[in-house]
């Protein structure tokens, strides 16, 4: 284990059971780098996860407290938990694209609406890979998967003028960023800002699934081929890249403070109690 894993992670889960070349570890590492940079320790963070590759592989890796919700509902669990945690304690959720943008989208949106203080890291591998590789809501249009053998035909959340981050922004999310797992310090900086943000923040990070997604879409299970594909489409400087491209960086950062859910509710409760006493 490297120094980061040594410092923050439970040895039993490292190395993970993820496939060779799975980019999830790159995402995981960036979150830890951000935590390290911010000087946070195990007691400062409660770590939640969803279901699927992203959830299972990161569950109970954190040396502090861990929980994994049912598929898509971890945002609701975290909403309740937020009311019980100390305000200064951070909550980080590592979830997959299906968890956040499919089965859990309703609960995610309501967590955004309420402005529940949590940082959601959506580790996006273009679909349902732990079940063998079915398309999801970020699968590139036309991609061949196990459930789109003739090419992805179902409209996704990220192409043709749609952007899931736009929906989250409209719903009231205060900090949104998008990166790919092949990026470096810039992604860590975004995650740091997301964690620091008091309220709902989300960082969408695309990472390669070598075994299932790229195995079918590129016809190669060589990790380096997937890495090169993603690297070529990672677009921090908004260049004109043909085909699908991932414009990375901070997507939206609110300039005005919106009251956080648990703070608001605590304040409300205090006011009612005072009124009842007087």
């Amino acid at each position, binding site marked *: *284990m490297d120094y980061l*894993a040594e410092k923050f992670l439970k040895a039993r889960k*490292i190395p993970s059971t993820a*496939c060779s*070349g799975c980019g999830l*570890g*790159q995402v995981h590492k960036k979150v830890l780098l951000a935590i390290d940079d911010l000087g946070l320790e195990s007691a400062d963070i409660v770590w939640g996860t969803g279901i699927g590759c992203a959830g299972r592989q990161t569950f109970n890796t954190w040396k502090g407290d861990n929980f994994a919700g049912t598929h898509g509902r971890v945002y609701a669990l975290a909403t309740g938990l937020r009311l019980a945690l100390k305000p200064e304690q951070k909550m980080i959720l590592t979830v997959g694209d299906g968890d956040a943008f499919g089965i859990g989208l309703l609960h995610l949106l309501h967590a955004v609406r309420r402005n529940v203080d949590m940082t959601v890291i959506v580790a996006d591998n273009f679909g349902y890979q732990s079940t063998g590789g079915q398309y999801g809501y970020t699968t590139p249009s036309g991609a061949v998967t196990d459930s789109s053998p003739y090419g992805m035909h179902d409209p996704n959340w990220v192409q043709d003028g749609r952007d899931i981050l736009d929906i989250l922004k409209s719903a009231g999310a205060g900090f949104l960023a998008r990166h790919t797992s092949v990026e*470096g310090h810039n992604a860590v900086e975004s995650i740091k800002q997301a964690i620091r943000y008091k309220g709902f923040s989300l960082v969408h990070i695309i990472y390669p699934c070598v075994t299932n997604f790229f195995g079918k879409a590129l016809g190669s299970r060589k990790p*380096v081929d997937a890495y090169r594909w993603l690297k070529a489409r990672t677009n921090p400087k908004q260049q004109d890249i043909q085909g699908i491209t991932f414009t990375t960086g901070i997507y939206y950062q609110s300039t005005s403070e919106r009251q956080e859910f648990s703070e608001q509710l605590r304040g409300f409760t205090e006011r009612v109690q005072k009124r009842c006493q007087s």
Partner: protein
Amino acid sequence: MAYEQKNNQPYTVRVYEQGCKECGYCIEVCPRNVFVQANYFNDKGYRPVQVKFPEKCIGCRRCFFACPDFSIDVKQGGKDSL
């Protein structure tokens, strides 16, 4: 065969062989060809990478960022810095 790390090199690169899954990302991203693939297997059945030319390392940490398995450390200084 194992490669020697020295004390007079500017950076020390260390690979945790048992965690390596042979993805090859570090070899891909290293601008100085510090790494080579081993010709033996670790306990999980992967051929881990080896730090063949540690003295070439310029400390860019691209390998560290690319390694998905928490299996590479890059530190400034000679071998004793690890």
